[in-house]
């Protein structure tokens, strides 16, 4: 197995608060990893550092031995990292098709991007809304559109921040299938609160707590671990408070 993504002693402070406190994280090629942890555990900040939105206070991030620490989002993105943010970040004034085409254009000519957009839209079942203005879509449709944009950039690593939040039962099922399908060709990291969903998709789970990795193991063992239950029930939270 080759290591695709590696962070060492990654730290991020905001003023006096340390949101991420020395995270050593390794991700192998082809994995589908879930990050869980209570609110404020540092998962989102960790994600933001991975895609360059927030520079680390110290520590290093490597993608395939390529040191990307402190690089700006577009540099990291062009090294094959795609992120679907928690609140969809979209081009509200463009149509769905235009958005996906623009996303694909970084590595392709406009006409090739058009073909890829066709393919991705078909794949995600979005052909029906291809010519709608993104700003007028429903919440679920916005999530899918963002995913379509991310996928059409052909990323090696896909970061998904709470992909099923606010989705209906059917949409969750579809997302599950889709994630598994994406994982056949790409490495995926998912931040998720919904434990049922985590159980359905993940094999390996990393638990964040107080900005550190509390435990990292197979999904069943993690969910059975008493420390994890304590964290979610707030016991250790109380102790630290």
């Amino acid at each position, binding site marked *: 197995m080759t290591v695709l993504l590696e962070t060492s002693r990654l730290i991020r402070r905001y003023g006096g608060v340390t949101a991420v406190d020395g995270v050593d994280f390794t991700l192998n090629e082809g994995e589908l990893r879930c990050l869980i942890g209570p609110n404020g555990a540092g998962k989102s900040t960790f994600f933001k550092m991975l*895609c360059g939105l927030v520079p680390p206070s110290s520590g290093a991030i490597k993608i395939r031995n390529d040191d990307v620490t402190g690089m700006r*989002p577009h540099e990291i993105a062009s090294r094959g990292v795609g992120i679907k943010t928690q609140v969809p*970040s979209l*081009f509200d004034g*463009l149509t769905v098709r235009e958005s996906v085409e623009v996303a694909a254009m970084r590595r392709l000519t*406009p006409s090739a991007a058009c073909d890829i957009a066709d393919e991705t839209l078909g794949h995600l079942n979005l052909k029906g809304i291809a010519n709608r203005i993104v700003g007028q879509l429903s919440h679920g449709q916005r999530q899918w559109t963002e995913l379509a*944009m991310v996928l059409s950039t052909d990323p090696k690593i896909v970061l998904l921040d709470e992909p099923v939040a606010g989705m209906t039962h059917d949409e969750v099922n579809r997302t599950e299938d889709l994630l598994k399908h994406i994982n056949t060709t790409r490495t995926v990291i998912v931040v998720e609160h919904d434990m049922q969903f985590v159980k359905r998709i993940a094999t390996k789970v990393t638990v964040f707590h107080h900005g550190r990795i509390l435990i990292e193991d197979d999904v069943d063992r993690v969910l059975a671990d008493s420390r994890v239950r304590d964290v979610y029930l707030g016991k250790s939270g109380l102790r630290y408070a």
Partner: protein
Amino acid sequence: MRALQSHVTTIGTLVAGIVLVGIVPFAVAPFTLADLTLYAAMAILAMSLGFIWGFGGILSFGQSVFFGVGGYTYAIVALNFDSPSLALLAAIAVAVTGALLLGYFIFWGRLSDVYLAVITLTISLIFFMLMNSMSSSIYRIGDVPIGGYNGIPGIPPLVVPGTDRSLSVAETYVLVVTVALLVYLGLSWLIRTKFGRILCSIKENEVRAELLGYDARLYKLAAFAVGAAIAGMAGALFAVYSGLINPDVFGIGFSAQIIVWVMLGGLGTLIGPALGAVLIQMLVVWLGKVQVIDANMALGVLFIVAVLLVPAGLVPRLQGLLAVAFGNLARSRP
């Protein structure tokens, strides 16, 4: 759809070109032609701001700086070297250089919209003050005194390339109008290219564009430079038209006007700003002639009313009405 729009743009421009270049010069009096030349130069300037603001999301209050710098450069180079063609190129080059420097400052500093507006406004005021204060004859570039608030008079007209013959009023008119039409076509084309579409997406959501791998700063800088090149050229053509350039081009009133043209005509279109410029220039000229009411007062009221009542601008409003009339045939695009 896109191909159709592109054809409409080309054919429309062609028809406008035939009328403006082929018929108008023979149908109207020379002093009207001179007025029309001015309108065309202003339309070029308006499109330059319409492009960077409407398609790049860059609200610059300093587009007049590039216009003014273009005009002054043309005057200084043309008078020093006696070569109007070289002067025209120099005007564009100097404006672009200025835009690259200023743009680096703004976009690499990640200044937000409001700060960008104030910084660009400040730059134009610095020029206004400095140019106004350089009235002593010690301030000169080559043989040409800057002239302070009097500006530089006696700017030579363009010549027929390879000869010494100056362009006539009608020929200058044809040249400026042709440039205006070419700028319109060129920008319409640029917006549909890969560069233009990425630029638009950056305007929509800069963070998302960066997460997709685009360096937003670079795209905005490029757009800013293109806008400056066009504005600088407009300034040079204005200097050719009027034979005089003075610090008023750096004044707050003029930079305000450019923004009104774009707002009133329609942000997010190219034809809108051009029309806005022509209409308001006509209004200003008319107000100056009838002398009933202070021009500033009338413009001020128009400005407020436009913002409150037609926030989208005239052209998008018209397109909207047409779209309703023709059953959504026309989408609101340039």
